[in-house]
């Protein structure tokens, strides 16, 4: 099946592992992702806080380009980033509801020679596409190296499941689609009551104390249920839980070491792909010890270099124990 693909700014670099692993698992599943040519930033949650009409125009340029390039990728636009998915589907929905808003956005788009009819492009989250278009049975056929024994906490975050403007593909508060997908991969899915709670988003840049508390709750919850790994569907969630995990440890005196991987990375491993093909190793909290436990990476690779405690004190890097 052919789809237009909107990677979003995070996947360009910060979440390169998500981009790489998404493409690596899409290919064997027959999901053809045609990158939207010359897409622009969706504005995250920042643009809309300062400007209304320009924010909708910014988002709609992408929708207009997708409609224009329809022949290449079809009328469905796949976004792996939850924030991009929300912004694209929300702008489309609100323009569909308000012809007056749509008319103003179109006047702005016309200044760039573009036009968009609300409702003509269907924005989908990558998880939705894999679970509902491909389906668990088809996915299962590709599992050659099951993740048997790996305790996985499926973390959905907020905006992929809430508010669900177009495709309400899972429950708002207790989603289960990724749980089932991870079970198909052979993993042991642990109960994770906070699975759809907030990681704080950009709050890390605004008020660290508020953000770190939100991140701590999630890590504690996963730790309480003895998860080996937290699996995410959003680059913001991955960044907050991974890159700020050491900050949480310093702030609260905890010692969490829970690796945070993308669902596509675990799918890739279960499909028998090599960790390097899936961007594994780019995480701050090393995932290899957890993966070695279930035979997914060699023991040698999993060896964590620990400093001799008697050695002279040295500055510590983030992610180092």
């Amino acid at each position, binding site marked *: 099946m052919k789809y237009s693909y909107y990677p979003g700014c995070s996947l360009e670099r910060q979440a390169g592992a998500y981009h790489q692993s998404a493409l690596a698992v899409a290919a064997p599943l027959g999901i053809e992702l045609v990158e939207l040519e010359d897409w622009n930033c969706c504005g995250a949650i920042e*643009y809309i806080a300062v*400007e209304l009409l320009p924010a909708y125009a910014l988002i709609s*340029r992408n929708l207009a380009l997708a409609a224009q390039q329809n022949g290449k990728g079809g009328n469905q636009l796949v976004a792996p980033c939850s924030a991009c998915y929300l912004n694209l589907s929300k702008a489309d929905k609100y323009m569909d*509801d*308000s012809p007056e808003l749509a008319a103003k*956005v179109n006047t702005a788009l016309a200044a*760039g020679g573009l036009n968009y009819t609300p409702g003509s492009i269907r924005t989908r989250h990558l998880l939705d596409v894999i679970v509902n278009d491909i389906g668990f049975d088809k996915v299962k056929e590709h599992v050659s190296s099951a993740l048997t024994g790996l305790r996985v906490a499926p973390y959905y975050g907020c905006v992929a499941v809430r*508010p669900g403007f177009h495709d309400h593909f899972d429950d708002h508060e207790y989603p289960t689609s990724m749980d089932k997908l991870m079970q198909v991969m052979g993993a042991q899915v642990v109960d994770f009551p906070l699975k759809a709670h907030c990681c704080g988003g950009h709050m890390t840049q*605004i008020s660290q104390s508020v953000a770190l508390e939100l991140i701590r709750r999630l890590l504690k919850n996963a730790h309480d249920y003895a998860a080996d790994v937290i699996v995410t569907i959003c680059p913001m969630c991955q960044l907050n839980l991974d890159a700020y995990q050491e900050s949480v440890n310093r702030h609260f005196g905890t010692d969490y070491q829970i690796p945070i991987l993308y669902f596509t990375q675990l799918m890739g491993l279960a499909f028998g792909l090599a960790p390097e093909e899936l961007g594994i190793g780019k995480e701050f909290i090393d995932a290899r010890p957890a993966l070695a436990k279930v035979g997914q990476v060699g023991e040698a690779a999993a060896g964590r270099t620990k400093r001799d405690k008697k050695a002279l004190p040295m500055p510590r890097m983030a992610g180092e124990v």
Partner: protein
Amino acid sequence: MATSATTTHSETFFDEVVAATPGNPHLDLCLQCGTCSGSCPSGADMDHTPRAIFALIAAGMKDTVLRSNTPWYCVSCYYCMVRCPQEIHITDLMYALKRMSIQEGLYHKTGAPEASDFAGTFIEYVESYGRSFELGLATRHHLLHHPVDAVKMVPLGWGMWRRKRLDLTPKRIKGIGQLQAILAKAKELRGAA
């Protein structure tokens, strides 16, 4: 009741808020049940909970509302919005309050000025390049607003770079001229509305 993002000739603060929100936010249906406040992950850090903010809006207390840190501490998690029994578009109302607070020049008095400064820096990158640029965003934001604490960001930045998760230069889209023309037109329409 005004129901459009583009109607601004309002009589009361309540109408002004509704007019600044896209679509119909259903604010007039608020029951003051407090489900939003109870669902909010950062409610404890807000100086007025969302429910209180809606009561203040109904009471026409514009200055108090626009000086509040509440919308700036909203993490956009949408819990309130999916739980609201009246289907009020709470998250979108929070965005509207942020915009109004900036327009009225009150955001520096909100107790959370970092949030709008961060948004401003983010927007500058998007408008110049068409894409966001994390290194520039984080460095500029911290150097401009937290020069003393900026040094604390160095280990994180270094960790990102070492793991090939950071670009050193921003990427510019090909159609940046087209995007800028679209945004300029949108700003013109906003001004005229």
